[in-house]
């Protein structure tokens, strides 16, 4: 994949768990333009293995001098977010992918309701720039555990004014999803990014209230879960790859020197889909892309987040 060389221009500890990184192009030229909601994949070379994690761009889409991302240090980090927190310093160079947008604003919407949970605020930070620029009707609901752990509240107040609604768990101001979605005018689109229970709650509430699927948008990058060790036979390349417990199948394939397609690396976009030729145990589908019937058919898999319950898998790659 065609990567961009960037230099880390600034690192800021925003909250005890969140760091904000500013990237500029290594040769000093402009970065590619992007739209609100886009993400990049950052490649990190750490102790003999490469992590590639997706992060939303949170800067203004009109600013192509620099890209901004924020990384929350995950409690059970496989290494990616810990690497960003501990090893990435100002002046270092990193490789990133071109921006891709899997969380676009619906241009025809009459109103936008944005719902963020914790670090899920990041894609909305570039989207509100777009919404403010076009003068769109929107409201941003930002839910977090406490103000101490909440990043960017001041910036958001400045950018959104009274369109920002903060919901702090510790103050008992929980977001009432049902009341929020029940009162929206026709033509409203809702967007959610945050922890899994919150995304599920929004999707379920909208469905129960009769919202059309096309008016409901979510983004939830999954970290590849840790699993059992297994072997993957790549039929076209004719090689066998061992997938360790803490590595995703996609990472193991890449580490073996085989080029595989990918975009989001979080089970969302479907780009890395591979055909399963043989499988001696069931498949462990962790993605949000394949339909239930595709998952049941055991014929396709998303190597970025999914694994096998068996010992050996044969893929058409």
């Amino acid at each position: 994949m065609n990567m961009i060389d960037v230099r880390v221009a600034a690192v800021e500890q925003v909250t005890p768990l969140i760091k904000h990184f500013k990237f500029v192009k290594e040769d000093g030229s402009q970065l590619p333009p992007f739209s609100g909601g886009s993400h990049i994949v950052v490649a990190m070379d750490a102790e003999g293995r490469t992590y590639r994690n997706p992060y939303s761009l949170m800067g203004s889409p009109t600013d192509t001098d620099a890209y901004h991302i924020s990384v929350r240090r995950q409690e059970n980090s496989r290494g990616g977010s810990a690497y960003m927190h501990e090893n990435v310093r100002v002046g270092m160079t990193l490789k990133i992918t071109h921006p891709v947008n899997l969380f676009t604003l619906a241009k025809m919407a009459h109103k936008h309701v944005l719902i963020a949970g914790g670090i899920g605020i990041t894609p909305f930070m570039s989207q509100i720039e777009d919404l403010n620029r076009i003068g769109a009707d929107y409201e941003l609901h930002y839910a977090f555990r406490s103000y101490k752990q909440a990043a960017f509240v001041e910036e958001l107040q400045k950018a959104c004014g009274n369109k920002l609604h903060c919901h702090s768990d510790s103050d008992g101001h929980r977001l009432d999803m049902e009341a929020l979605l029940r009162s929206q005018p026709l033509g409203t689109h809702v967007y959610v990014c945050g922890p899994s229970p919150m995304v599920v709650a929004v999707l379920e509430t909208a469905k129960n209230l009769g919202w059309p699927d096309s008016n409901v948008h979510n983004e939830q990058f999954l970290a590849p879960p840790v699993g059992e060790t297994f072997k993957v036979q790549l039929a076209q390349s004719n090689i066998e790859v061992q997938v360790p417990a803490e590595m995703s199948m996609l990472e193991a394939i890449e580490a073996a020197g085989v080029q595989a397609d990918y975009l989001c690396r979080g089970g969302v976009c479907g780009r890395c889909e591979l055909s399963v030729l043989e499988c001696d145990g069931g498949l462990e589908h962790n993605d949000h892309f394949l339909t239930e019937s595709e998952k049941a058919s055991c014929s396709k898999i998303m190597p970025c987040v999914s694994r096998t319950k068996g010992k050996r898998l044969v893929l058409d790659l």
Partner: protein
Amino acid sequence: MERGYWIKSKPVYTSLVWHEKATSHLVLAAGIGGMAALKLFQQMHPAQPVTVLYAKYAQMEVDYSATLKKIVPDNLHVFKFEEDLLTELKSIMPHMRMGLRIYVAGSEGFIWDVAKVVKPFGVENDHIMKELTDTLARSVYCVHCKAITRNVTTNIVQCCGCERMLFVRDHFSRNLGAYMGLMVDAESPGELPAIEEIYP
């Protein structure tokens, strides 16, 4: 009419069935479409509020308003003409909220007139449940002069605008609520295939 071919743009109509998940329901019926509304009320009534707008179809001498008044619990509004119903629809739409489900039954012209009224309020036609009743008559858009000839029941029709003889195709425009019509005798003027009633 050719057999065994399918054009993607041609609309598919179904029978009306209540959506279980909703915040409110709006039923719009005209003429024989009143029967579709009555059939809807034969099903278990939804838990959410229902509003019914019905236009008597003077042309066809059918009027289900008396029965509807007995069956529809409340919020039934009866109009004489489709235009009056559409005017009322336009005035109530701004008060509607997400979760509204819309059901339409009537002629194809009525169905797409409704779609046109609700679109500016953010309701896409995919989200409207539609039942075709009354007639298969088509509105035909002339690709030459852009006039729309309404209530076409035949395979070939004379354009109300430019008077060309148009072949009525299955290509349908959701924006115009009309099928495509194009000149049938352009290459051999006056030579027309048999004109038959196929959209009674």
